[in-house]
């Protein structure tokens, strides 16, 4: 069995755990911090996967022969992952800022269409696709249990609606009709 650096493993696990915890937050900025922590935790896991520490993997230097060198491949992979995390951070920050511009907060919001359908089901409204003729077909309300699993307990979809409505009418940000 190879020697595994216990500190690296413990730190990686701690980072991943904290990252997952933060990932479940409402505020996008906190989610971002969680994602970055998770990314760092995974990078440490890569280093663990690369085997024990060794000398610099440069052929011909005083590092000795290949068996004493550190494995360069996980290091390359970690570098790639760091660069990708950088791009992620930039993009998510831009999204959080845009959300703050539009909504005044950067909370991750729920699926409003889903909430609307759930409410329709709760008030026992028939699917309007049947038109006025048929009042006796409630088959669509039975799909409720699955859709209630999709979103966490939405605090107030109705409350979020008017805010987004006013901002949807912001000129110049509409998609082309």
């Amino acid at each position, binding site marked *: 069995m190879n020697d595994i650096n216990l500190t690296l493993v413990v730190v990686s696990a701690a980072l991943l755990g904290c990252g997952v915890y933060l990932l479940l937050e409402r505020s996008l900025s906190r989610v971002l911090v969680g994602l970055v922590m*998770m990314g760092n935790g995974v990078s440490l896991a890569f280093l663990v996967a690369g085997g024990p520490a060794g000398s610099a993997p440069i052929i011909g230097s005083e590092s000795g022969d290949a068996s004493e060198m550190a494995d360069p491949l996980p290091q390359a992979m970690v570098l790639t992952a760091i660069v990708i995390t950088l791009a992620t951070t930039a993009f998510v920050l831009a999204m959080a800022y*845009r959300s703050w511009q539009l909504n005044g907060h950067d909370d991750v919001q729920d699926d409003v269409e889903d909430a609307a359908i759930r409410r329709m089901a709760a008030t026992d409204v028939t699917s*309007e696709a049947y038109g*006025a003729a048929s009042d006796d077909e409630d088959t669509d309300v039975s799909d409720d249990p*699955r859709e209630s699993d999709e979103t966490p307990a939405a605090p107030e979809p109705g409350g979020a609606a008017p805010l987004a409505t006013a901002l949807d009418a912001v000129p*110049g940000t509409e998609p082309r009709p």
Partner: protein
Amino acid sequence: MSALIPLPVLLPILGAGLSLVLGQHPRLQRLISVVVLASIVVVAAILMVAADTEGPQVLWVGGWTETLGIVLVADRLAALMLLVSATVTLAVLAYSLGQGMTEDEENATLSVYHPTFLVLVAGVANAFLAGDLFNLFVSFEMLLFASYVLLTLGGTATRLRAGTIYVLVNLLSSTLFLISLAVVYAATGTLTLAHLAERIADLPDHVALMIQLLLLTTFAIKAAVFPLSFWLPDSYPTAPAPVTAVFAGLLTKVGVYAILRIQTLLFPDSPLTDLLMWAALLTMLVGILGAIAQSDIKRMLSFTLVSHIGYLVLGIALASSAGVAGTIFYVVHHITVQTALFLVVGLVERRAGSTSLMRVGGLARIAPLLALLFFVPAMNLAGIPPFSGFIGKVGLLQAAQDQGSTLAWALVVGGVLTSLLTLYAVTKTWAVAFWRTPAEAHEALEEIAERDPGYGALSSAEHRGHVHTPRGSLSLAAIEEARRLGDDDLPDRDFHQLIKDGDDTPHMPRSMVLPAAFLVTASVALTVVAGPLFAYSDRASNDLLDRTPYLSSVLTGDEQ
């Protein structure tokens, strides 16, 4: 011939760079995009012929040797997927050009549309060609980042909301992918698929199982398989129609391709067959039940997309030659049909101003071509003979029947039921959107508003999570007006604002209709070429399950 392999990846990346530089010249950007995509179609066709006649085409990038390098492999499956994706993407590009997406007067940043589109294509091409897990990871990241940009194009509130969900779910799956890569590397010391195919067999069972579960979960998130599919109907409908079409046609299929590749190449005697079959069954049923509940056409189609991914996983789970062949045929069919449907729904949106079934009606009289363009792929999706949907489903169900276990029979029943329910969902849309009279629509809307004032308020505020037109709220006002005046029989015009008064813009420009019609025709043509295509799928499936053609081409070195 191997020299052609990197072209589907290189050309779009170079094109994207060039396109960014030429941001002020939209005509040149369009030209670059079209030229690049057309050349990828040609290269993919050549690779497909070469893979079919000579065996997998292999390229070790940079000339590095087997032990060190990254390999690109174009076998039958990869070349077929590349060809289909490139063709479909070219059609969607033509559609989006016709829609004038890049000529938005208000929004100068739309000069990023073309570069982003090309990066997406590069990522997809690289994902199909990758012979190395880390290369697969990088290509996933490329296409995902491009998709983040395309999904949140314009930065409107609804797109941002949906985009956030999409971004976070996919970032989570990318992190999971990285973790699985770390585990794979720690266990085997390599990430090349060909080497892994040999070394995983030597691993202890529990380690191999862990690796398989990690990779499957990662790709299942991307492919939207049942427990992990909630993000798709939330985020896909809010994007512009061509973007949704590309996502539906490409991104989930890349996930399915990855599952297919690792299941056949790395884990041939998988203990997870039952799990995959359950996942397929539940995906099929839950997806289609979700589709029935929707009152928005785009959302309904997103749910059918999820549901039919279940068919694909069904074939993979069976792991028999017939099953995998059925999956390959069905993937080609599904990419074409689903993309065609989303493009047609984009046309509906253009013509009627909305895709909500509450607002749209009577389109068949006003736009009969649109009705035809919707009807054909809708019947194809539902699996009506003689279309390719029927052929693909029969192939898959026969493969399940051949396997004969109880779970396989449950899958057969589930598959047939899903097909029926798909027919129900699209027929409902067909009946409402195309044949409903305004009087019926008026009554339905009124009833909704009475029973659920919140819903009525939401819809009048256009907070529906998809298309916005300020004209939408006008429809309720028009109804109020008409009711006040005692007029029960509303003319088409007032109800769904088909005509922008005094507007000279053609409602459905030919440049939009033609690509949609092309894809619909292609989906019909699949019926005609179904014989050769199924034979090709059989050959590809035998290659995959046999593993020898792939392994012998990659490992004993067609080195460059």
